[in-house]
């Protein structure tokens, strides 16, 4: 119904000039005209070769009338897209005044968005290769405010020149002009280490720079085998799409035996098959992931700029520069996925306002401040980001009650039972399958792979193999439960609160205590029986909520109370005190409401 005046930073409708006559002389800027051609070139680079290939295929197949379709079609489509893009370009204007950043856009539905500059939390300058060739870049401005229901909290300019992008990055987060408003804010940002400020005056401070050896951490993910599978499946798919031409060509060149010969050769040495195929998956996964990491993290530099921002630069083909106002960097996440953790690696993510993207996954991808690096280095980087001598990550964490472990063991037990039932069902089905069925299955696999391996291996698996599988699954479930319990923890640092959880991916989150904007305590029926609760601090930063999961209710409340003194206090009763568990009935809320006044 009503809202504080400092809210939605969005003008109702109509031009800005009426509301801010003082800004009238600041000229509106356009997107760069080349951006249309950059977009067209990128689309064309993908579309035209595809159309040419299509034409050739149709000619080869003898479908002459159809052969004249792909190329003109592609060109017509390209023209249409380029035309629409041209309209968009003409309609879009932006400007940055002393007070606000304003963007007008829209061909049919005109839109005008205006945000106060002090609301700008992050500026993301990205230049994919095809855009960089034209000397352009895209700029995404994060405001840390959801505008409208489900609306984005970002303003995006696609594309401006690299110089314009650099100007925007520098200007939008530069509070020097507006510093008058909050000298205390500036001191806040500098934190307790006053000497860091003198250092800052000298220029940018480098927090981290890529050590190429870190790229070796890139394949250390649980997905490596999967990515390898994907890479090999893509190759095999291409092979079967072309009717096996590729395989015939390769085997002809290398003088390999025919698929049938190889198949019988391999099946005779079954013990070698499984490790070898795993190795093949592993190698292809490692190659793909390392290449991806090189693309993402090449030229990686993390610096603290003199204007009070933290700036991330990275990228080989798509170069990215992300600036986050340091005051809005409310904490960090030390992210340790299982495989990376077991080889002593971790990466650092930001807990900041203005980095949120469309969904949780994109948000966390955008928040990444470092590639996988040695865990000691990651901890040092986190401490440097938080400007703390004694890192909040080194705070001893309190373990959660034993009942949290029991809960996890119960879950593991249920999973084990389900796994055992599934294994039994599979073993039963395995026993039922007859020769003709296997023949079909092998022929089906032959469609995809030149040498069918999976089905023959499955066929020769003895019945006790399923039992082994069930037992292994059960052991893994309980081991996971134990690790998951060990991962739980919460603690307090003079300026930060710390929570840790997770087994598959262990996240240690530090969040500035001053950034906590509320508490949310939840209990499921199961947690109620176990005397546990999830105590979550809500915040504007990061994912919006950071929870101490399965903490003892009293323990968690005491922690929350200590983290933000005074907030929870009025609503707590101590066990020792005369506990009036039931609140006084108030049938008439009016009476209560007026009393509070």
């Amino acid at each position: 119904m009503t809202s504080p005046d400092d809210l939605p930073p969005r003008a109702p409708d109509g031009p800005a000039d009426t509301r801010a006559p003082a800004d009238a002389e600041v000229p509106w800027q356009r997107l760069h005209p080349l951006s249309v051609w950059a977009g067209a070139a990128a689309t064309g680079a993908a579309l035209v070769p595809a159309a040419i290939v299509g034409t050739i295929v149709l000619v080869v197949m003898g479908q002459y009338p159809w052969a004249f379709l792909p190329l003109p079609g592609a060109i017509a489509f390209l023209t249409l897209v380029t035309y629409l893009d041209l309209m968009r370009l003409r309609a879009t204007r932006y400007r940055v005044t002393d007070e606000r950043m304003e963007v007008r856009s829209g061909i049919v539905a005109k839109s005008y968005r205006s945000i106060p500059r002090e609301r700008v939390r992050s500026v993301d300058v990205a230049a994919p290769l095809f855009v960089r060739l034209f000397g352009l870049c895209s700029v995404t401005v994060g405001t840390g405010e959801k505008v409208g229901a489900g609306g984005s909290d970002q303003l995006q300019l696609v594309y401006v020149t690299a110089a314009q992008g650099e100007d925007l990055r520098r200007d939008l987060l530069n509070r020097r002009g507006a510093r008058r408003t909050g000298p205390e804010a500036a001191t806040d940002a500098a934190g307790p280490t006053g000497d860091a400020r003198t250092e800052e005056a000298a220029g940018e401070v480098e927090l981290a720079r890529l050590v190429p050896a870190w790229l070796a951490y890139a394949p250390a993910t649980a997905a490596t085998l999967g990515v390898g599978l994907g890479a090999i499946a893509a190759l095999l798919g291409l092979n079967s799409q072309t009717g096996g031409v590729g395989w015939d060509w390769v085997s002809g060149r290398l003088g390999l035996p025919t698929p049938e010969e190889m198949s019988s050769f391999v099946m005779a040495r079954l013990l070698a098959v499984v490790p070898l195929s795993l190795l093949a998956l592993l190698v292809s996964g490692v190659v793909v992931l390392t290449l991806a990491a090189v693309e993402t993290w090449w030229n990686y530099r993390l610096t603290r700029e003199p204007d009070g921002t933290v700036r991330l630069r990275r990228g080989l083909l798509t170069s990215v520069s992300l600036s986050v106002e340091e005051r809005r960097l409310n904490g960090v996440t030390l992210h340790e996925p299982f495989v990376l953790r077991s080889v002593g690696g971790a990466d650092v993510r930001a807990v900041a306002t203005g980095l949120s993207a469309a969904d949780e996954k994109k948000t966390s991808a955008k928040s990444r401040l470092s590639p996988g690096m040695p865990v000691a280095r990651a901890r040092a980087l986190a401490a440097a980001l938080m400007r703390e001598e004694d890192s909040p990550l080194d705070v001893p964490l309190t373990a959660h009650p034993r009942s949290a472990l029991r809960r996890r063991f119960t879950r593991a037990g249920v999973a084990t039972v389900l796994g055992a039932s599934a294994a039994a069902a599979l073993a039963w089905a395995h026993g039922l399958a007859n020769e003709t069925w296997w023949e079909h299955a092998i022929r089906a696999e032959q469609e995809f792979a030149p040498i069918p391996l999976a089905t023959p291996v499955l066929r020769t698996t003895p019945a006790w193999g399923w039992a082994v599988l069930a037992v292994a699954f059960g052991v893994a479930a309980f081991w996971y439960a134990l690790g998951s319990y060990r991962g739980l923890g919460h603690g307090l640092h003079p300026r930060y609160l710390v929570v840790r959880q997770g087994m598959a991916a262990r996240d240690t989150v530090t969040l500035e205590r001053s950034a906590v904007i509320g508490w949310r305590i939840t209990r499921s029926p199961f947690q109620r029986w176990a005397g546990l609760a999830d105590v979550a601090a809500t915040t504007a930063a990061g994912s919006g909520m950071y929870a101490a999961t399965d903490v003892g209710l009293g323990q968690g409340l005491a922690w929350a109370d200590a983290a933000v003194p005074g907030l929870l206090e009025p609503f707590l009763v101590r066990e020792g005190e005369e506990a009036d568990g039931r609140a006084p009935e108030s049938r008439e809320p009016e009476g209560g409401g007026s009393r509070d006044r």
Partner: protein
Amino acid sequence: MSSDAPRLRPPHHRVDRRAVWWWTTRSLATTVVLTVVPVVPALIWAPPRPWFLLAAAVIGGLGLLITVVMPQWRYRVHRWEVTDTAVYTSSGWIWQEWRVAPMSRIQTVDTARGPLQRAFGLSSVTVTTASAAGPIEIAGLDHTVATEVAERLTETTQATPGDAT
């Protein structure tokens, strides 16, 4: 941190008594709609009729049970309180939830009333903070109380400087 374990006390105020009727009506309406869904094919399609009727009976029975139990239970657990420093609510009849938001971090306060709530003279107050964790909602307040609460919250939050993040 003191050694004795603290507990949360329930917020002082209950929602309006009429909310029970509001919840009952709403639950009943949902039950009726869900029960009718399998009845329609049962009317036009003879062979599997008993099965559809059975499904309708099960859905209807469960729905009625929920309609009888839920509103009373919810009335007991839905509580709210506004102090000078914070908004405090509790809710959830199976999955319990307590929310606390300090006055200084409240961004917007809205009152809203659907047609059904209006029929019972009720309103909901929604308190939004900058967190993505979602707003705090107090549903089923007497309309005048809701307006008062919203006004009071708005006054207090407007008096607080800063952008509440």
